[in-house]
């Protein structure tokens, strides 16, 4: 009966469980155990899995997902959601490359313009969510389409690259600076990822602002009546979310040195998976940067290992989705 089942959750205070609780253990360490098990299985199947080269390869492959997922983690921390991150990454990717190729701009200008575009999107999201009060998931679904379209329109649905043919038939003359090309290469790409994970982890866990975000995520009305400027922090969360998505897009641009159509879109689902797998890591129970990184590592190892074991790419999503479902099962089974 609806009345009874819903009420049972509101039951009287329950004391902490004593002794060993298997599910509690799985909840806290399940993700990490899974990673360890995967590493063992893959390295037994193919010893070269554990080679330094391959490990670096894995880290490199997850760096963009991680950066984008970190932005999502921040929007999740205020109990929000941002589906537009993939599109923002695409847009930043297109803008930064076009700045080089079409407009022959310097690295600093190119990156700055891309970040600025992303912040505008973040501001738009924040305004419509905070002021117009459209539910976050729906609104960012809408802006996801809009921004995807804006990026496509901007690139005229073409891949931007050096020496591309312009609409007037001539070849583009701009070049992508060498320094920019370094961003997407080892070791910088991995350093950038770690720097962002650590910075955001510190921000969320050790600063006033991070604590406020979690308080807002925990109970927005209580936060408001505690005198926390809720709207300000929600706006900040969506700005940061867009900002990190754009950084992801810029790193992606540097790595492939072109702007493919909707290149960032593929990262959305992986980022969502990483952030949600991260909820339970070490029993945090809330969105956190370190957990998100662990979630991305899990996805990265899985993808890399499966490729090594010659699982066809088209079957990859089945495994990825299954692992995601299992991780969610661990997180939510506990809440029952």
């Amino acid at each position, binding site marked *: 009966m609806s*009345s009874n089942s819903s009420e049972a959750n509101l039951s009287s205070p329950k004391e902490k469980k004593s002794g060993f609780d298997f599910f509690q253990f799985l909840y806290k360490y399940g993700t990490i155990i899974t990673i360890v098990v995967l590493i063992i299985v893959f390295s037994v199947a193919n010893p070269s899995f554990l080679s330094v080269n391959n490990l670096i390869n894995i880290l490199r492959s997850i760096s963009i997902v991680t950066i984008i997922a970190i932005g999502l983690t921040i929007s999740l921390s205020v109990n929000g959601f941002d589906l537009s991150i993939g599109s923002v990454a695409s847009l930043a990717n297109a803008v930064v490359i076009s700045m080089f190729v079409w407009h022959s701009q310097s690295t600093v200008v190119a990156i700055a313009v891309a970040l600025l575009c992303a912040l505008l999107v973040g501001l738009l999201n924040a305004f419509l969510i905070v002021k117009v009060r459209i539910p976050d998931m729906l609104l960012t679904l809408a802006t996801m389409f809009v921004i995807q379209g804006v990026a496509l329109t901007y690139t005229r649905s073409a891949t931007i690259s050096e020496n591309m043919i312009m609409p007037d038939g001539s070849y583009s003359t701009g070049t992508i600076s060498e320094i920019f090309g370094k961003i997407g290469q080892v070791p910088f790409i991995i350093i950038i990822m770690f720097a962002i994970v650590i910075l955001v982890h510190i921000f969320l866990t050790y600063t006033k602002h991070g604590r406020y975000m979690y308080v807002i995520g925990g109970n927005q009305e209580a936060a408001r009546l505690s005198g926390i400027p809720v709207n300000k922090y929600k706006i900040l969360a969506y700005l940061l979310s867009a900002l990190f998505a754009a950084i992801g897009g810029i790193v992606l641009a540097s790595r492939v040195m072109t702007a493919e159509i909707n290149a960032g879109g593929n990262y959305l689902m992986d980022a969502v998976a990483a952030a949600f797998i991260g909820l339970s890591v070490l029993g945090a129970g809330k969105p956190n940067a370190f957990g998100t990184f662990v979630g991305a590592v899990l996805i990265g190892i899985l993808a890399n290992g499966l490729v090594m074991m010659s699982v066809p790419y088209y079957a990859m999503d089945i495994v990825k989705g299954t692992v995601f479902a299992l991780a969610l099962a661990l997180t939510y089974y506990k809440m029952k």
Partner: protein
Amino acid sequence: MMSIALQMKDITIDFPGVRALDQATFQIDSGDVHALIGANGAGKSTLMKVLSGAYTHYSGTIVIDGKQVEIRSPKDAKAHGIQIVYQEVDTALIPYLTVGENIMLNHLVSDMGKSQWVNYQKIHQEASRVLEDLRINVSSKQLVSSLTLAEKQMVLIARAISSKCRFLILDEPTAPLSTAETDQLFRIVRKLQEEHVAVIFISHRLQELFEICNYITVMRNGRFISEDTIQSVTVNEIVEKMLGKKMDEQFPVIEKTTGESILEVNRLRDADKVNDVSFHVRSGEVIGLAGLVGAGKTEICKALFGASEKVEGSITLHGKRIKPKIPAHAAKAGLAFVPEERRKEGILVEEDVVTNMTSANLKDFTRFFSFLNFSKERKVTSQMVERLGVKTPTIETKLQNLSGGNQQKVAIGKWLVTDADVYIFDEPTKGVDVGSKKDIFTLILELAKRGKAIIYASSELAEIKGITDRAYIIFDGKVVKEVNTKDVTEEDLLFYSTGGRDE
């Protein structure tokens, strides 16, 4: 002689770490209205959840009409005619369906059989019949989302008796109701009583039990303490049994001196409820905003704290005009607000005591660049927990594991950390047990003694009488009367609160 209709014997239930019920017994006969009372955590709700089939892992026996029965699921309970109406009505209703559909929900779920089609005509017909029977003045076709709290509760009662109902459990039904609404509820209860329904009545408002109940069972610490006829006990005796010790004066007396006016509110208005409200508070003074539920006290508090939109009028703090647009402004100016809806607005249930305690004044717990000072947080929280007498295993315990009274102490404590000048309390004792109530009163008076200005909004007129120095009586969003509390009686307060005028 016939056997008693329902007996629960030696009911014991354990949750990890606690024994919530310890050989509890309870009995009720048809046509009785039986009060079940106890302090928070005494086990009365748990006992009723056992009876309604919410728990499966209890031991003990339940006997109905002399025959032992097994109740291990809500379905079992309903089959025996046991229906429960929970306190949080919103969790049991579906807001975007009509009253009729909500009343007939049980039938829609369990009595449809092979039929795949919903017969709306029949639903509304039968629902209307139930509503008419109870003389509830609500249309069956109205959406539940448009109802008042009291009406929602009546819809739930209608749902309960629309199916077989021999035993009706009402869990704190009057807590959110105004006097008039309570009277209507009592009328319905009496009507059910005439139809030989046994009503189990849980409430913290002891006075009203004398009006409606004929038996009273007191529980404490998961155990059965006593069963009496209502005529044979007094409020003081009941409180004594609930607490297991003599109750001293419920309202503490603390000497304090009143200084000059700190906060002046002039012609305050909001978009709908608050209408031209003016009052002032001096330092060291506790003023009451007295009024029935729905009179607009909460709205006044929220308008004052910048939590409502379109607020007009002037608020002057220490001679300076303030215009709090959002609560953050008000808090910064030196106001503190303990809201009525504790779980929804006051605390973070999934966070620990430390996070809750520091959430209103986090900037005092930071070092350079807004980095948090965890050790200071823990130190101040520990002090505050001790000062307030919060009963918690550790300061890392999540708030959802604390009792209502202790949650409220934390909700108040977080504002003590800020050291504001004006404290606004909105129904601070709602859902709080008698022991914690006294702690909270003491706390409030001590704040006043330290020179703070206190605004105490409550519909519990006994509290207004007991704790405030002056009171403004609110009726329909307006101040209808200002009184010195010591010059008036509780009856006077009630007179003005219900719209009574001088002359």
